[in-house]
């Protein structure tokens, strides 16, 4: 039986339970490519969240009007529209940022995170829920991209968000800026995250067993009386 989730739960699940990068492993292309610095990661995640939010909302609103045979085509057109808007606004207002992200802003169109949420969630739920789901996934994406960008920037160029953290005696690790560094960082992050989740789960299981034993012991003593 599936319980109805509250709006807050819809939001939170995107950060942890179904985190787009960590759990669904979606949208890895921008995750790996643009996270050479923390600020790039933030900008990319914000652009993606913007597109995700509006396309999910839009798709959810018109979900009952779209014949299922042409739904994917419709989603892509809607997503592409918002991506183009994001791209134009960035080019017009933040030219430096748009240059740093290069071709990855237009490529949000084919980011499977957005189409994934559209198909798996927005097309089946009401607009308000879809909006919170999109925001949650966007926030999850932002957190991961920021962490990855910070780690790579810290070891690759000694800074985080442009502030010097490590001393000059630290030789920057070139590999962290190169694509290989992205794979290594993402792999380690996922590994740590999974190990942590596993430990929490095991502890929960042990607690249940312990409780059960305590209860049954109590019951048997009761029977004895």
């Amino acid at each position, binding site marked *: 039986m599936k319980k109805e989730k509250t709006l807050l739960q819809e939001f939170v699940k995107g950060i942890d339970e179904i985190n787009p990068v960590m759990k669904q492993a979606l949208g890895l292309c921008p995750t790996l490519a643009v996270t*050479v610095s923390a600020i790039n990661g933030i900008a990319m995640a914000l652009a993606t969240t913007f597109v995700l939010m509006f396309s999910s909302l839009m798709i959810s609103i018109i979900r009952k*009007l*779209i*014949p299922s*045979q*042409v739904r994917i*085509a*419709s989603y892509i*057109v*809607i997503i*592409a*529209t918002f991506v*183009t*808007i994001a791209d*134009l*606004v960035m*080019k*017009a*207002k933040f*030219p430096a940022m748009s*240059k740093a992200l290069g071709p990855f802003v237009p490529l949000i169109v084919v980011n499977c995170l957005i189409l994934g949420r559209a198909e798996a969630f927005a097309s089946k739920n009401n607009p308000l829920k879809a909006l919170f789901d999109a925001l949650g996934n966007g926030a999850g994406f932002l957190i991961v991209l920021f962490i990855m960008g910070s780690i790579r920037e810290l070891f*690759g160029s000694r800074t985080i968000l442009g502030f010097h953290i490590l001393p000059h005696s630290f030789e*920057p690790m*070139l590999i962290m*800026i*190169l694509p290989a560094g992205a794979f290594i960082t993402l792999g380690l992050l996922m590994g740590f995250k999974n190990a942590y989740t596993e430990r929490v789960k095991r502890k929960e299981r042990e607690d249940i067993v312990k409780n059960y034993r305590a209860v049954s012991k109590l019951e048997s003593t009761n029977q004895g009386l």
Partner: protein
Amino acid sequence: MKIVIRMILTLTIIGVVAGGFLANVAQWANPLIEANKKAETEKAIFLVQPDGKSYQQIKNTNFEIYKVFGENNELVGYSIAHEGNGFQGKIRLMVGVSSDLNKIKQLEILDQVETPGLGTLILEPPFRKQFSDLSTDPKVNLVKGVEPSKPNEIQSITGATISSKAVVEIINKGIEKARILKERGAL
């Protein structure tokens, strides 16, 4: 049959609405984007011609070249924007040359996608400073491993020979094109 019509109708409506919406956004954004581009080029023109006060683009050429004028409207030199292949992608740069085209004033790299940490050293002062007051007669030469001894020589970056070479080649080609224009009297 009904479903076919519905499919066509839905996609058409979505397409038209999206297109109309985008047209409006583009109308708002395009002038701003143009202005950004122009400001960027303008900044680069004066960066490579420190004495420049005003400029004028020379028309009817297949590359970007600007006449740069000083305080009293005298010609101080030319700013040439040129691009070519780098290690992984295009390198686009702006070079300021004297009015006889025989001396480089400054070099500015506008766009590049070189290897971070190696090829990107072409952006750093130690490499770029070498081009200040560099002779281009007959052309810029790249030397490897030794200190430059002639006035038209610069030293290659260790580990980024291809990027260094690309920069020098792009500059040489740009200046060569400018020389042809000058011979024709078009400058």
